[in-house]
């Protein structure tokens, strides 16, 4: 009984959110103790990254009533992490971040289970990601975000009306910080923009012209990039530069210093060299705390419905005074990653040739062109290439690829797609939209007639 009382008092504040009805709650919010208990029992959250944001996220989730957590990170603890990655101690240096972070939070917070994964995010099968109710991102790279986004969006299925199937939506919360600035966003694939819909939000990395580096360096960064991009190649024929190799970094630093002295440029230090080469941005613990707190609360709201969620992108800037704002971005309906694409039902006997033949001669059977033509949004003519899961089924240009893929023309699409009942192909061609001709790339969900095996897709077959 004592335990029961303890656990009740522990969730006292959370109970205020989860046990009481409210006016600005989600549509399907059902307050009550079951909700709190189910949150513990059935909400499985994956935290991606166990760095500055990841440490905060794990702590925040564990203190917000979540008990089934997992964390994935490929890095080991470095001494420079200790100022803000507060779950780590000096004696942990060299150990995997995910393992130490999981252990520390579990030691501190009763009842929380955290499974650590010390590996690259790409090392896990998609099945691994599909088991979570929500994925929280505490990452510092666009590439990693883009990868997780791609995996999460790949679970998404649409019904024949183009609405996402609820059980295939994998929600994400994404945090990011740079010094005093940060963002927190909510991604509900199929509803709010996915990472790829708004990739333009990320400014391109500043790159210096090579000839400036080679001829007229003016800043310390120019000297470092000269050593990194030009001098390294001259001196180490063929050997790739590895930023995680301290010897390599030391070499670049030494060379950069020589160059800086030659041109009388101050400011080249070892840590600045690391900063430039690895594109390291200074991190501030409190910014991480603010962003992580926002992400965790959004996750709680998404999963329980206890309040309306952020819609859908919050920026925080504490650099000069404080400015914060929520912006509602809209999703790109033609997004190749999260968009629904065009649904096409076709016969298993159709050959690739038949699909691609120049148009007037086929008006009777299921072909990309005439079926796409029925879609008021799309008028595709002259498809020039068909790609299935990275395999080029056919490419009309350039000639070298045409030659390599020509033999596929006489094969059945069904066979080329490994006899799956349904799958996504990408087709390029000329589209006519508002009387304008545009070369386009379309995502097409192909469903083969009579091949649909009732588990996931009864609605697709019915609606096609």
């Amino acid at each position, binding site marked *: 009984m004592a335990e029961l009382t303890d656990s009740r008092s522990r969730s006292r504040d959370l109970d205020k959110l989860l046990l009481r009805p409210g006016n600005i709650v*989600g*549509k399907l*919010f*059902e307050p009550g103790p*079951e909700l709190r*208990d*189910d949150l513990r029992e*059935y*909400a499985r959250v994956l935290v991606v990254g166990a760095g500055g944001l990841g440490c905060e996220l794990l702590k925040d989730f564990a203190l917000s009533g979540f008990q089934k957590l997992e964390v994935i990170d490929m890095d080991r603890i470095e001494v420079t992490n200790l100022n803000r990655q507060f779950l780590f101690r000096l004696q942990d240096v060299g150990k995997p971040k995910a393992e130490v972070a999981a252990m520390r939070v579990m030691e501190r917070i009763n009842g929380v289970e955290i499974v650590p994964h010390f590996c690259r995010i790409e090392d896990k099968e998609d099945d691994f990601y599909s088991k979570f*109710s929500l994925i929280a991102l505490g990452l510092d790279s*666009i*590439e990693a975000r*883009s*990868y997780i986004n791609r995996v999460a969006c790949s679970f998404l299925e649409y019904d024949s009306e183009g609405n*996402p199937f*609820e*059980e295939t*939506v994998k929600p994400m919360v994404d945090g990011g910080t740079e010094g005093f600035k940060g963002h927190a966003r909510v991604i*509900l694939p199929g*509803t709010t923009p996915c990472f*790829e819909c708004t*990739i333009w939000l*990320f400014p*391109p990395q*500043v*790159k*210096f*012209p*090579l*000839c400036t580096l*080679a*001829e007229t360096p003016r800043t310390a960064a120019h000297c470092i990039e000269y050593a990194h*991009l*030009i001098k390294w*190649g*001259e001196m180490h024929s063929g050997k790739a530069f590895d930023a995680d190799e301290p010897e390599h970094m030391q070499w670049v630093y030494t060379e950069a210093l020589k160059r800086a002295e030659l041109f009388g440029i101050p400011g080249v230090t070892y840590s600045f060299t690391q900063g430039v080469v690895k594109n390291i941005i200074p991190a501030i613990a409190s910014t991480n705390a603010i962003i992580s707190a926002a992400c965790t609360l959004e996750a709680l709201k*998404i*999963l329980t*419905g206890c309040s*309306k*969620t952020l*819609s859908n992108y919050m920026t925080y800037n504490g650099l000069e005074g404080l400015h914060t704002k929520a912006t509602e971005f809209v999703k790109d309906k033609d997004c*190749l*990653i999260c968009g629904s694409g065009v649904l096409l039902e076709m016969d298993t006997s159709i050959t690739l040739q038949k699909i691609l033949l120049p148009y007037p001669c086929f008006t009777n059977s299921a072909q990309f062109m005439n079926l796409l033509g029925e879609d008021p949004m799309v008028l595709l003519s002259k498809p020039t*290439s068909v*790609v299935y*899961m*990275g395999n*080029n089924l056919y*490419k009309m240009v*350039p000639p070298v*690829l045409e030659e*390599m*893929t020509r033999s596929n023309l006489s094969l059945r699409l069904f066979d080329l797609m*490994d006899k*799956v009942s349904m799958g996504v192909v*990408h087709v*390029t061609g000329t589209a006519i939209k508002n009387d304008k001709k545009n*070369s386009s790339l379309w995502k097409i969900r192909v469903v083969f007639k009579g091949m649909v*095996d009732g588990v996931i897709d009864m609605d697709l077959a019915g609606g096609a």
Partner: protein
Amino acid sequence: MRRGNLPFKHKFELLPEGGAHVIGKMIKLFKVKEKQREIAENANGRAPVRKQSAGELRLHKDISELNLPKTTTISFPNGKDDLMTFEVTIRPDEGYYLMGVFVFTFQVSPMYPHDAPKVKCKTKVYHPNIDLEGNVCLNILREDWKPVLNINTVIYGLHHLFTEPNYEDPLNHDAAAVLRDNPKQFETNVKRAISGGYVGSLFFQKCVQH
């Protein structure tokens, strides 16, 4: 904002009052479904899914839209299913480099077109804007890259380097100085380099095609 469309919430929603035991059942049903799907997929012999990055998809579009100058060819050393690495061969039809054959390697990252393709010149060339390691000084490959640009633009840019070598943005300092101060000498040097020979103390492999 619709909040009902979430998997976790969805399960609650179907619950009758006080049905803790039903959740267990539902999860089990869910598990059974998952198993069934696995079996069905295995029976279909579905190969492991290779998901294409947005960059790869965009590259497919770029490649399908290539409109190369006659002087240029493209090849895919890793076969038809790896377009992320390819080679572009340029045979200038005018200017100092007429008759030469120059091969560039392109490496495209999954973050394309957010990131520019990485381009190197595989052929050792005597050129003010290309150094002896094959680094290329072309603004659209670095500081002026924008996602609206494409592979075609880059190839035209490279082509331009051979018709209009530019001594103001030198990577090969010596070549740039010769071009600026003594274009006749530059012409001689280029001819010597592409036919296979020494320019100063540097040897260049023959890269002329007849």
